[in-house]
């Protein structure tokens, strides 16, 4: 069984990857860590691994709207097929 997960990029990742979103098709079960590894493998830059502590991951699936995930703290959480993950940069004002 494959899981379809949509990633939406904001901030640095969007500008460095030159895309707003992409869809990943991964073998189930998909952990958050599997997903991060898949993104890094495809897009390079290793940005998510290098500075995960101030990346913000908003996880939206059917019944869970805008849950926030942290990496690596939530690395073992299972990501449901059909869900959307929005990735933001560190949020400081200025």
């Amino acid at each position, binding site marked *: 069984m494959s899981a379809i997960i949509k990633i939406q990029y*904001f*901030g*640095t990742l*969007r*500008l*460095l990857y030159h895309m*707003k979103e992409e869809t990943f098709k991964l073998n189930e079960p998909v952990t958050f860590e599997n997903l991060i590894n898949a993104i890094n493998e495809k897009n390079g830059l290793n*940005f998510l691994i*290098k*500075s995960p*502590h*101030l990346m*913000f991951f*908003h996880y939206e699936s059917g019944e869970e*709207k*805008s849950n*926030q995930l*942290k990496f690596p703290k939530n690395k073992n959480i299972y990501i449901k097929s059909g869900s959307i993950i*929005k990735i*933001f*940069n*560190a*949020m*400081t*004002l*200025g």
Partner: protein
Amino acid sequence: MFGYCNKVLRINLTNESYTIEDLPEEYIKKYLGGRGFNMKRLYDEVSPEVDALGPHNKFIIGVGPLSGTLFPGSARVNFSAKSPQTDSLGDSNAGGFFGPELKFAGFDQVIIEGKAKEKKYIFIKNREVTFHSARNIEGKDVFETQRIILEELKDDRVQVASVGPAAENGVKYSGVFCNLVRAAARTGMGAVLASKNVKAVAVRGTMDLKAKNPEEFMRILKEVDHDVYNHYEYETRKLMGTTKLVHALNEAGCLATRHFQTGRFEHAEEVSGEYLAETYKKKSKGCFACTIPCSRFYEIQKGKYKGLKSEGPEFEGLAGFSSRVGVGDIESSLKAVDLCNRYGMDVISVSECISFAMELYQIGIITKEDADGLDLTWGNSDSVLELITKIAYRKGFGDVLADGVVKAAERIGKNSEKYAMHVKKLEIFQADPRGLKGYALGVAVASRGGDHLRSEPSFEFTEDSEEGIRRFGAAESAFRLEYKGKGRVVKFFEERSALADCLNVCKNTITNMEILPFEQAAEMLNALTEYNFSKEELQKIAERIVNLERAYVVRCGITRKDDTLPERFLKEPLPSDCGQSAGSVVELELMLDEYYKSRNWNFITGIPTIEKLMELDLNDIIKDLY
């Protein structure tokens, strides 16, 4: 002398004379530079009773020991006076190139007193001052003014700090602008300079700055550069500057939208920093000696605003003229920011005044007739642009808004004060305090009024419980929607911000990115100057400045009752579409107690205790407060 010029320029406009004074050593040891110098001067020489737009107010320019060195971001310059907008402490700073040039011209501080008999601009070159007629630039916008002065002085390396027509027309939130768009626009410092009949201060310097131990200074500088380049925020700031915040705050549910009626804007994508960078950005630009070129040049190549090109904008202008006024067209937002820059006005105050009027229009407190026939429906960008011009020239309804949102509410009446989003008469920024409890506290207690830049407690975004416990004694301190520990967080970041402003280094670097810890700052200053600072002394200097400013505003009548927020943030929960921020209000009192406790200020009055003032060697001001 090392690090400092050790000279203060005092200009008397009334008789067009000037004197050069030695910088008192007490200033260096107790107030360090820039903001610290200016606040000490303001406290000692400008009584809270003076008319802010009268000849007895003083316009003070200050730079710090790192100004003019290669330290990244050390390009800031502080402009201070009693504020005509808030009737209290006025202070604002800008980046660009003016600050370092003032240092090359041989001064740590400039004090401008009196009032010129006719419109003038002042030219400071290598410790000499000349006064020039400004009749030919009277009423000109900021861009034209700076272009003409450079032409007249026949030196394109001259740096100019000027006001625009808004200041000349007495708009209370008009600013001082350097390098066209570098705005020191908070608290109405432009109005003060214009009230003295001064259109601009131009400066050119070719004097040397020396470091006591250049090799050691450069060694530490390399460490700092390394820390900046390797910081997790480096790429983001380089790509988008502060405009990254449109999406980030919108997703957090606390982007100021339609005058804080909600925290989510349906057109956030179309007005985002990402969209701006992808569609309009031409290249990056940095301030003097900065390693993070966070500013951007943009150009609109087609459509209604074809040909508009400028630098910026920052988040405050972009969100102020998009989400805050309900406009989803980024090109008209860019036009609005450009107008404010040319007229010389503060984008935060202008966007508050206009969005305030739009909300009053929505609920029927004002009508189309009250607004000179303008349709103030949310999102009407043509009305926004027209109103900006009306404010700058104090025409019709623009005149009602030109003194700030508090005075506008007084003139409009009909209980409109409850919709005025200000603290201590200074309009607040583009983030909704209900979703950022630390920022809410910081804005409530800031010495210059509703201002996030006096503290910038961005630690509350980190969501790192262990760091929260280690640094501030509470896991909750690392979470934006929690309260515990926020008093200590705000105190710490107020002092980091004071350090940044005394060194005249950008807060993006020192406060937000937390580059240059106090200990490293001491090492750097000891290599640069002939003084021997310790980490503890620098912390104490920063704390002293916060307390001196508090004492000044207390003398202006400010007490704990003024350390508050507009009613909406205390009583109206953020709507259900605001994600994790939904349902939030600000429970301010507990945070205030914790803040006063950590500051050792009186819980009831908010006045620094005698014990605290003595601890900070501020014995001489005790008599002013007790």
